[in-house]
């Protein structure tokens, strides 16, 4: 099908883009990479009266590192740029590992990190990765700005805390401590399909090799990407041995509340949560020793 008619604005500055959104509110949608919005418009599931196209706004894309090691990624940064960035591969490998599972190369050419996060699909990889990494999002509006933790950003399927005049402008990811290990795993029917379930994990050891910190974040396991804090708590203080990892995986399996999908019922998703958590934790634990 073809999209319904709309008015198109392609401002050159962030201030213009935010002013347009403030003026038109929910009648206007920001257009980032368009890899989720345009299909919805082609199906006429989404019929915005106006698109504020961000593709010509200067300064919304880019990859930068603060002195403290925090990674800043502009909302309009393409997946293609992120997956080819050698510094990100070295310092934030979880992003790269998960990006390989995001749709297909043709989609990653256009798709943006900010657009994906603002779309807030609970089956999407990057929202879960952001929770696992403890990312923070900078939101901009014509009346100012604020910062929210990734864990507070997603509130329901396709729904975030963004107000109608706000834009997700930048993603800030804190550095991984030394002795960290990360891993991403998902199960999908075919390469690039929506995952039936997936998990992103981070583990950090102390100098004695004990688990100091752990985070498990699941996708396709509820209405939003979800953390499994009780499973993480079980890991703290352990040697990340086989038994501790198995216990945590069992806990994670009980903690998530998957809703089921066309391809997987909640029972099967719960099964996958346990299996994938165990495997991902084992991989991350081994990597944290490297």
């Amino acid at each position: 099908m073809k999209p319904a008619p709309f008015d198109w604005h392609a401002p050159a500055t962030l201030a213009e883009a935010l002013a347009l959104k403030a003026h038109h509110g929910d009648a206007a949608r920001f257009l980032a990479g368009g890899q989720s919005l345009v299909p919805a418009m082609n199906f006429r599931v989404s019929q915005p009266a106006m698109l504020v196209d961000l593709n010509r706004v200067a300064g919304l894309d880019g990859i930068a590192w603060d002195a403290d090691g925090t990674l800043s990624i502009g909302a309009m940064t393409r997946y293609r740029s992120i997956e080819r960035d050698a510094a990100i591969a070295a310092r934030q490998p979880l992003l790269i590992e998960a990006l390989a599972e995001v749709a297909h190369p043709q989609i990653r050419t256009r798709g943006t990190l900010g657009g994906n996060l603002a779309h807030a699909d609970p089956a999407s990889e990057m929202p879960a990765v952001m929770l696992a990494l403890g990312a923070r999002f900078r939101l901009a509006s014509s009346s100012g700005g604020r910062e929210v933790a990734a864990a507070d950003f997603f509130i329901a399927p396709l729904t975030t805390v963004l107000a109608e005049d706000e834009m997700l402008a930048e993603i800030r990811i804190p550095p991984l401590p030394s002795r960290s290990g990360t891993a991403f795993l998902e199960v999908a029917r075919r390469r690039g399909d929506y995952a039936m379930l997936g998990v992103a994990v981070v583990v950090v050891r102390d100098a004695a090799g004990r688990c100091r910190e752990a985070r498990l974040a699941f996708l396709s396991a509820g209405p939003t990407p979800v953390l499994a804090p009780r499973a993480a708590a079980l890991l703290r203080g352990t040697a990340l041995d086989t038994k501790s990892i198995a216990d945590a995986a069992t806990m994670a399996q009980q903690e998530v509340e998957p809703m089921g999908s066309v391809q997987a019922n909640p029972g099967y998703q719960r099964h996958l949560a346990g299996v994938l958590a165990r495997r991902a934790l084992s991989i991350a634990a081994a990597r944290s020793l490297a």
Partner: protein
Amino acid sequence: MSQRIAITLDVNGTAYRREVEPRLLLTDFLRHEIGLTGTHVGCEHGVCGACTILWDTAPARACLIFAVQAEGHAIHTVEGLAPAPGQLNPLQQAFQDTHALQCGYCTPGILMTMTAFLAENPAPTEHQVRDALSGNLCRCTGYQHIVDAVLLAAERAR
């Protein structure tokens, strides 16, 4: 009255000026406005890959881009691959030699995907080819001969 915008798009090195509605997809611009029907429309929601074009040097779904967004970018379609009418480029020749197409509907999209892939990966493994091919659906071939064709094209280029 809906908005109409005058745009000039660079497609295969030729500039085309047209006045279009913002909702016109790049696929429909290519096929209906300038008559380049080699770019096929399959699913129109970014899944099948039949409409894959090169956006500057990277493969992209033309069905998920509005034509008005393409100003200032170099668009390449399957019509731009062959060196001259009646001739094939090395990738197209490899497709013919290995019987890598049956109905041919998916072929233009696959040729564009693999043109970009081979430019970045001149000596790919079979696994890399299959991974790169994952965003293009073919309902005839079972993919085996397409993989053969890409590997053959890479081998001949060495």
